[in-house]
């Protein structure tokens, strides 16, 4: 009868109404889907930045010798005999050439001894113009430049020895036909960069209009790229990825609710995310940030480059989006579970999201106030973080990491949740140690607040370092427990090697490496050596990318049939999965060795001895990109040509597999009745699943499924 009995994806009567039904929607599934599209877009953007970062590191920036015909030699001796004298040196990296001029309007200010002056400017193609000062409504000519009839100054166009175009502005010489002395000249070099010089011997001075950021070096582009990668990936991709996108879609369904507790707040969270994203993108367009995503003071308070303030505001705004999602999830889990679902009847994904939400609510406000204080510092110089004014940069680091360390658990905990789900479903096995996994999520959430200063072992005081080192090891224990439980879950399972299962295994592989490289960073003396090196980069990526991103992609495949209603291509999904896995490991495993060898991170160039390792890493990044592109094609194919998904393609037992694919507008036709736990694979044939395909183990009483 009512239209909430149709799929949430079903279009409305008219196109406009369909669009509006998405714009004004308070349906958690639509909001989650919009989040999903947005975070995938951000993943793409951040990924492009990452590819450029790796490309720059293909080889170190070096001085090379360029002959006139353009051949490049590492050493002048390599050049043919005749060319050696005419070699020019150039600094070059493989990808980013140094750009010496950013603003295309060099100008020469011709001061003629008095306060009146004239400004000579050149556009990008070098065509010159002079603006002369006005006096008494008439154009005066204090410089005695030859003028045409309409008052515009005359430039003589010549070519210099190198073949560059030169425009010269000369002083008028009324006594003879000889040209007067050169007042100023504009030269356009081979690359089209204009530069201006004032003539010598005159009372002139050279000014070049140098807006902030007028010189971009190779390094500078690189610095923006890795900062862009960090800020986008952390604030716009990975934090909202699983909770706000997949969590939003599935949390209410999995606990049998019609919606989240505060649907309008949920919509607001989405629009705040968009608003914050606009600030971030504006910052990128307006020059980008080059502070890294950590915004350490006093670098971030003093740099004039780019648009740091805009990026800070973006992160501040995005924080609210995250807080609102977290609040919503906590209340939803507390108040909207289907009757009969106790805390220990919840799927582990819900436990993970609940633990995540606790961190989101408790940690994010501190980031908010930190960034606000940093904005005040930049705008008003309040002097709390700026050492020049008596402030303390380490205090900023404490403020920042009080959020940002728990934030890495905001990123990884939901991934733990989806892995628990995927392993149980695809191994057709009751999860091993349900309570241990559930409690370890909460324990990780609590301990995550205790360990932040391990990011500051080279900065903080020794006493604090010892305390934080000890506390850091605490967090390793619940994490280890989870991994052991997952492996134990596979024991005596019936393991279907679908793409989600494949990704679960990839996750276990990569996350175990990521986790096991944590202890050298938590141990004080080894961390002193490894701190701020590529070892940290590799560790972080093994946890965040090998952990969260692989779990996210796996979860996308796992739930894709449910929320889109279409199946994806299993074969190509697995091909893409293997490409991503191999590419990922090629890219990042070598970085552990770079780190122990002492290669510091955030380096735009490096000593030649690291070249081979960097080349391997960059090569891996291409494989990785190819893998993700195949995934993109697989998903696109599924959306447009995928076959219709059954209600329960994997034989899952949690509540989302009971409803239609895609789910109805209010999730269920009527409120579901809980007849079994989410992991009772030993005793229950899953709903909507062919019992013939689902043999139950011998000993059980072969109880029929509840349908």
């Amino acid at each position, binding site marked *: 009868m009512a239209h909430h009995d149709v799929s949430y994806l079903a279009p409305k009567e008219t196109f406009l109404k369909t669009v509006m039904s998405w714009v004004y929607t308070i349906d958690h599934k639509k909001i989650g889907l919009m989040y999903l599209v947005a975070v995938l877009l951000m993943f793409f953007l951040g990924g492009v930045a990452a590819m450029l970062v790796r490309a720059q590191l293909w080889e170190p920036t070096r001085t090379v010798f360029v002959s006139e015909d353009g051949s490049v030699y590492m050493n002048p001796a390599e050049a043919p005999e005749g060319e050696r004298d005419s070699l020019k040196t150039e600094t070059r990296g493989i990808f980013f050439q140094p750009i010496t001029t950013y603003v295309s309007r060099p100008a020469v200010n011709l001061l003629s001894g008095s306060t009146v002056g004239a400004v000579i400017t050149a556009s990008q193609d070098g065509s010159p113009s002079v603006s002369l000062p006005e006096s008494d409504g008439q154009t005066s000519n204090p410089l005695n430049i030859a003028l045409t009839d309409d008052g515009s100054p005359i430039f003589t166009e010549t070519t210099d020895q190198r073949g560059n175009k030169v425009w010269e502005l000369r002083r008028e010489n009324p006594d003879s036909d000889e040209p007067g002395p050169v007042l100023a000249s504009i030269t356009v070099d081979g690359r089209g960069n204009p530069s201006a010089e004032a003539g010598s011997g005159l009372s002139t001075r050279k000014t070049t209009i140098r807006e902030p950021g007028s010189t971009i070096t190779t390094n500078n582009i690189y610095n923006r790229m890795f900062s862009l990668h960090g800020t986008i990936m952390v604030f716009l991709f990975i934090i909202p990825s699983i909770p706000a996108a997949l969590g939003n879609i599935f949390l209410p369904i999995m606990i049998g609710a019609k919606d989240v507790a505060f649907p309008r707040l949920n919509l607001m969270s989405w629009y705040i995310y968009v608003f914050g994203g606009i600030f971030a993108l504006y910052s990128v367009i307006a020059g980008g940030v080059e502070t890294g995503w950590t915004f350490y003071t006093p670098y971030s308070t003093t740099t004039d480059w780019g648009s740091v303030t805009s990026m800070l505001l973006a992160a501040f705004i995005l924080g609210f989006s995250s807080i609102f999602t977290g609040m919503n999830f*906590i209340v939803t889990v507390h*108040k909207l579970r289907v009757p009969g679902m106790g805390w220990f009847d919840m799927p582990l994904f819900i436990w993970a999201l609940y633990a995540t939400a606790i961190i989101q*609510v408790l940690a994010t406000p*501190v980031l908010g106030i930190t960034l606000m204080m940093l904005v005040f510092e930049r705008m*008003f110089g309040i002097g709390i973080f700026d050492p020049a004014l008596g402030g303390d940069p380490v205090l900023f680091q404490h403020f920042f990491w009080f959020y940002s360390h728990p934030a890495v658990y905001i990123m990884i905990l939901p991934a733990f949740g989806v892995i628990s789900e995927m392993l149980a479903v695809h191994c057709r096995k009751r999860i091993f140690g349900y309570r241990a996994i559930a409690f370890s999520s909460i324990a990780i959430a609590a301990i995550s607040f205790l360990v932040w200063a391990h990011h500051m072992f080279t900065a903080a005081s020794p006493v604090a370092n010892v305390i934080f080192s000890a506390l850091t090891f605490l967090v390793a224990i619940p994490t280890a427990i989870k991994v052991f439980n997952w492996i134990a879950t596979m024991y005596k399972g019936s393991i279907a090697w679908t793409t989600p299962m494949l990704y679960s295994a990839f996750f276990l592989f990569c996350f175990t490496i990521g986790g096991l490289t944590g202890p050298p960073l938590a141990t004080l003396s080894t961390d002193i050596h490894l701190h701020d090196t590529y070892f940290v980069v590799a560790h972080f990526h093994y946890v965040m990318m090998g952990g969260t991103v692989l779990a996210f992609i796996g979860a996308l495949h796992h739930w894709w049939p449910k929320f889109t209603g279409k199946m994806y291509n299993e074969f190509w999904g697995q091909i893409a999965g293997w490409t991503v896995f191999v590419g990922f490991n090629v890219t990042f495993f070598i970085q552990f060795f770079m780190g122990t060898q002492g290669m510091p991170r955030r380096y735009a160039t490096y000593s030649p001895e690291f070249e081979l390792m960097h080349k391997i890493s960059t090569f891996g990044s291409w494989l990785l990109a190819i893998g993700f592109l195949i995934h993109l094609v697989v998903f696109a194919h599924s959306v447009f040509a995928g076959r219709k998904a059954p209600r329960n393609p994997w034989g899952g037992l949690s509540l989302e597999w009971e409803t239609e694919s895609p789910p109805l507008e209010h999730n269920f036709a009527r409120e579901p009745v809980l007849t079994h736990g989410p992991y009772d694979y030993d005793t229950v044939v899953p709903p909507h699943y062919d019992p013939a395909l689902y043999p139950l183990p011998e000993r059980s009483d072969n109880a029929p499924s509840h349908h």
Partner: protein
Amino acid sequence: MTSAPKDKELKPWEAYIPQHHWRNATDEAEGAKLGMWLFLSTEVLLFAGFFCAYAFFRLLYPENWHDASRYYLDWEIGAANTAVLLLSSFTIVLAIRAAQQGNRGMMLIHLGITQLCAAFFLIVKLGWEYWPKIRDGKLPGIFFDYPAVYAQRAAEKAMIVAPDAIIPAAQVAGDYASTFTPGAHDHIFLSIYWISTATHGFHVLVGMFVIGWAMWKAYKWHYGPRHYTSLENVGLYWHIVDIIWIFLFPLLYLV
């Protein structure tokens, strides 16, 4: 089920039905309240940033901090504002009580008093605290006008003709201001004073808007014995603004 015609005489609070995804109104009210408490906890942690910065610098420069607090800020104004905020908290509690009893008149009166208190707080803050400080250059960070403050202090000292015997007595009475000399970190003290009180003041302002909204809803009969969730949440918000001030007041003005 029968579909009887709707009773036009039902007031909005009587006719209230929960949103579609809630099982019943009790769950909805409790859920909303829990959500509000979570929001309040984010507020507390937001202000924790100021408290942490305060503690950090106070431990670094204890004397400077103490003297600056006594010299730059008037505890009388702070105390008056504290009392006013406490009163407003009390009246908003009474407003909720009135809602529970279905007494719209008392509800509006008490919310009105709360509004007046909030306005009083802001006017005192702007007129008696912020404005003189802006005038005298007692501003945060690099805006802090050391020369002007020194000149002013010198003029004040010139006016104090104090026989030696009186100064210890003044100290016993706690009159530190008479011996005060501006310190090197006054600008940071004032930075923290400005950003924390301004953020708090902003919350008071937001509070006035939401209380105004609650008054409008009360006027329209949206609150009654069975439904006053949003009024309760407005009250919770207002109390947290009060509690934050309870901590800010002694830290900034007294010790």
